[in-house]
Structure formats: C-alpha cells, structure tokens
C-alpha cells in the first residue's frame, strides 16, 4: 500500500541555520499539508498546498517558513533561520481529492534545534 514518506527521520541543527524537511506524498494525491507537534503538545497545522500554491497557512507559518513542490514527487518545508522553539516533530500529510477528507500522514521528522 502506498505511503507518505519523510526524510530525514531526525535532524539536528544549530540555531540560526536553515533546514529543509522533505516529504514524498502518495503519488496520485493532490492536496498536501505540513503539521508540527511540539513535545507534549497537540498536533498543529502549519500550511496546506494545492495546485502549486499555498491554500491556507496558520499564524505559526511566518516568513521564516516556506514550502515548495520542486518536482512531481517531493514536497518540502524550509525553515530559513531556525529557533530553539522550532524543535518539534514535523508531519507531512496528503489526500487524493477534494471530496475525501481523509489525510494520510508520513512518519514525521524530528527536528532538534540546539
């Protein structure tokens, strides 16, 4: 069964550095999402993406964040200058079509900012 994949599984970086988190959504899916979960807190929405543009973003998704779908398969989240508070688990999700609201999640990338 096809699955969403994410790389790396764990990323450690220094404060102020740029990081790129990578996701490969399920191949025929059209809607893409990033969520994050700070340790001990709830899963929070960051951004949704459809038809090569951002559909919606939360207030967490400030100018330090960007998303891209550089080719037909990858969906990336870039954090330009990481802060300590960006340490979290980042989940990518996708769904096939508008009418089906089930989102399929990747295994997550644990980002640790030192």
């Amino acid at each position: 069964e096809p699955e969403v994949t994410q790389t790396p599984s764990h990323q450690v970086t220094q404060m102020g550095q740029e990081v790129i988190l990578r996701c490969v959504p399920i191949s025929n899916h059209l809607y893409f999402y990033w969520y994050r979960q700070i340790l001990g807190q709830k899963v929070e929405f960051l951004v949704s993406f459809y038809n090569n543009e951002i559909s919606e973003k939360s207030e967490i998704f400030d100018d330090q964040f960007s998303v891209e779908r550089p080719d037909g398969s990858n969906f990336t989240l870039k954090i330009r200058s990481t802060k300590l508070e960006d340490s979290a688990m980042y989940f990518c999700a996708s769904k096939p079509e508008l009418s089906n609201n089930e989102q399929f999640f990747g295994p997550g990338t644990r980002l640790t900012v030192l």
Partner: protein
Amino acid sequence: AQRVTQPEKLLSVFKGAPVELKCNYSYSGSPELFWYVQYSRQRLQLLLRHISRESIKGFTADLNKGETSFHLKKPFAQEEDSAMYYCALIRRGNYGGSQGNLIFGKGTKLSVKP
C-alpha cells in the same frame, strides 16, 4: 473558536474492560470528525470518521451534535489497543469535501494492562 478537547491525558484499563475516550469539540458550522491513532513508533493513521458510521477494530464513535461530542468506545479493550488516540475535526465545504486543515485535540494515551 474552533477547538477539540480531549480531557484525559492518560487512560489506563485492564484487558477486557470497556473503554471510552472522550472528545468534545467547539465549531460553528458543519465539521467532519475523525479519530486518528498512533501506535508506538508508527505514523498517525485514521481509525474512523463519523460520516462512515462503521466499527474499526471493535471501536465505534457517534457524533452527538447536541453535546458536541464524538467519544470513542470499545466494549472489550485488548492489549494491542494501547496507543495514542487523537480526536480531530475538519471544516466541511459545500459538498462535504474540504481543502482545510485538521484541528487536533491533545490526545489521550490508552494503556491496556494484561
């Protein structure tokens, strides 16, 4: 404000006992409700959704619009049910579909003891 509340952080039961994981929501509109489950070291995966009205792995959940609740129930818990359970909602569009994001509760850790 849109909000999902799971009042119990941890629920511990013995094998064979009934289990109920509580979920209340606050949303002005017509949401679709979900239960996602995350087994140890695995990804978030959909357990069930209110529109399908089905039982998965013995779990059921009924949407109670009057009480704005979507509690998850199972009559006889099994050890393999031990996991994190997240209640979530999504804003439904005009025809049921949505580009929108999932709004999650904080999750309840279910521990089923032998």
